[in-house]
């Protein structure tokens, strides 16, 4: 075990996979010589050569399209889109092509491409460097969608994603790169070295997609979340003094329905929390599933905690961000409902 922050864990995942499989190639803007604007690919071009860690032109549609073509020719590309906010020029290639190549060819072709992209707010990124677009991909048949909340999971999930024969959208909450963030911007930042999940094995291991993690067991309330909000919800549950069970989904496609349903049936109360905008967000899908599967076990309406239905404003970042206060308010409302 080694202490790693999330960037180091992601770097280690790619390093491990490149060493094991000569078909793994990296591509993206600034990822080669420079090592990426967030340093996730640092040192990998020096180690594996400029044919396997490619600097790409600023053309996200071209990056994803050429990654698809490489995957058809037997490679396993890992493409970095510098910010999730920049992914839309590639949306057609992802939705109409990448997601459906296996399906439309009757299973004869497949496109094992992993797209890594930093998402979420909390770094003063304004409306073009803060988005959480996971719902836009979860809605598309044929894509797996992953969002880790800590270094250990980040490495294991990225290795599992690269080894997948199906395409994966791998969203990295950038506010978590350097340390767990509980939603309070005024507290001094803490690193991953003080966190159990900052202990990361150096070699190969997998964290399977579609398996949620119960990060805090509890009996009175279930909080279902992923990404940055895992840490916010943990802190909020602690402050609210409620015996809450907090579930980190880790991947939203495939979705671990069983873990969700078992927990809600046990607690009878539930909150779904994410940083993305509320309307038609992924929370609505989780909530529908709970309503269908757990209705007779519910003792209170299931509530959503999310970003507001506005773009992410630069000046009002902490008024937009669904911090502890918003989670605690939802906990109270859920616990007080009879």
């Amino acid at each position, binding site marked *: 075990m080694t202490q790693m922050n999330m960037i180091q864990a992601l770097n280690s995942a790619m390093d491990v996979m490149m060493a094991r499989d000569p078909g793994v190639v990296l591509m993206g803007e600034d990822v080669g010589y420079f090592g990426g604007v967030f340093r996730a690919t640092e040192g990998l071009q020096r180690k594996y050569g400029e044919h396997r860690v490619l600097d790409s032109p600023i053309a996200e549609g071209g990056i994803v399209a050429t990654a*698809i073509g490489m995957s058809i020719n037997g490679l396993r590309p890992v493409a970095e889109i510098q910010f999730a906010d920049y992914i839309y020029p590639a949306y057609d290639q992802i939705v109409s092509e990448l997601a459906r190549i296996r399906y439309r060819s009757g299973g004869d072709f497949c496109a094992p491409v992993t797209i890594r992209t930093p998402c979420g707010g909390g770094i003063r990124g304004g409306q073009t460097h803060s988005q959480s677009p996971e719902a836009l991909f979860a809605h598309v048949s044929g894509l797996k969608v992953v969002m880790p909340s800590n270094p250990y999971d980040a490495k294991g999930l990225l290795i599992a994603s690269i080894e997948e024969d199906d395409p994966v959208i791998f969203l990295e909450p950038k506010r978590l790169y350097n340390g767990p963030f509980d939603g309070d911007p005024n507290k001094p930042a803490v690193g991953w070295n003080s966190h159990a999940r900052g202990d990361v094995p150096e070699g190969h291991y997998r964290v399977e997609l579609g398996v949620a993690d119960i990060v805090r067991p509890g009996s009175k309330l279930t909080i279902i979340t992923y990404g940055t909000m895992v840490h916010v919800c943990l802190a909020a549950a602690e402050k609210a003094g409620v015996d809450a069970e907090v579930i980190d989904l880790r991947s939203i496609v495939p979705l671990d329905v069983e873990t969700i349903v078992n927990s809600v049936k046990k607690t009878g109360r539930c909150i779904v929390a994410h940083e993305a905008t509320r309307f038609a967000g992924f929370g609505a899908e989780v909530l529908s599933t709970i309503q269908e599967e757990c209705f007779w076990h519910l003792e209170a309406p299931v509530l959503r905690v999310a970003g507001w239905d506005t773009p992410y404003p630069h000046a009002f970042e902490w008024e937009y961000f669904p911090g502890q206060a918003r989670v605690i308010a939802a906990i109270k409302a859920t616990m007080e409902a009879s």
Partner: protein
Amino acid sequence: MMRSRLHVPRPPARPGEKPDFSYVAVSPAGTAARPDPNAPLNETEFLSREMVRVLDDNHRAVGPWNPHLAAADLELGLRHMMLTRAFDDRMHRAQRGGKITFYMKSTGEEAVSVAANMALKPSDMMFPAYRNQGLHISRGLKIVDLMCQLLSNTRDMCKGRQLPVMYHSVESNLFSISGNLATQFPQAVGWAMASAIKGEDRICATWLGDGSTAEADFHYALLFAQIYKAPVILNVVNNQWAISTFQTFAGGEGRSFASRGPGYGMPGIRVDGNDFLAVYAVTQWAAERARTGAGPTLIELVTYRAAPHSTSDDPSRYRPKDEEKSWPLGDPVARLQAHLRSLGAWSDEQEKALAQECEEHVNQAWKEANTYGTLTDGPQLDPAIMFQDVFKEETPSLARQRMQLAQELKERAQK
């Protein structure tokens, strides 16, 4: 007073007007020089303005681009073009008769696919567009297999999931056709980049129409291909029309599509797309560039879409009837036939026999294909197949939906 004025391009002739192809600059056959495939860009730039042509008005092969193909190869090319045309005609009628939902003919554009395939190796990869059936036929896919795809029947390679004509073949190195335009262009570049990364000598070719060059994917493809010197041949089939949209709306007014090539730093060649020998020759030239590490080539194949865009289209509403009869570059099948005759290698009897053979081949295949079912009759695909291949392995939620459908169908059958 000088002021700005919005320019809205229009085609030279609309329905009821006399066809006018004076805008098509046609070089005499044999006049364009043939530079070395690895020559510097400035020595190949003229190829984007002139037109490479080999067959002259007397149907003889002339000039430096003459590939000197053996008569047997020419006959094979003719056979594949005539089979493609017979297949197209029969399938168009099948759609009109309500047997298939949709079809797209390639009439008048057969050389674009068949000659290009002949100039490449079977191990080379292809990312076709939707009007490249000549590739599938000349690569030896069985006509009956293509028909089963059109029928979405029990032997459909796409398992009933794709609109007719969106074929593929792993064994024949033909990638799955999308149905969305231009997406295959940058994918082909990625395939070729992988070939270079792996140090293999397989190259890649891809096709799209003049209209599709307006998509960003076309520009991504040229950019990435040239940056990484990918071993890829980028073909623009300029058949003048994108449904009712004339090629000027894709930027073809006053500047050839081939000229986009030099703009990105690669050669662009404008070629007579209805001249089998010329298409073969430029493809061979581009393949040599790709195989020797010189990188990509953009080829503009100047041709004419003699057929409607698809069975859902009626070109008489936007262009003069029989416009194709005035097309200055003629018909690729008739021109190759005339060339073979000029060599003394072809007779009326042979032509008649081959036409009949193609027709019988197609009719026989159609009969067989129908025994594997149609959308309405005969053996049917199991609807549960729709849940396969979304992912490599079925997810629990897809399994639940599959069982839900089974229940729905059971109840429907009981009613």
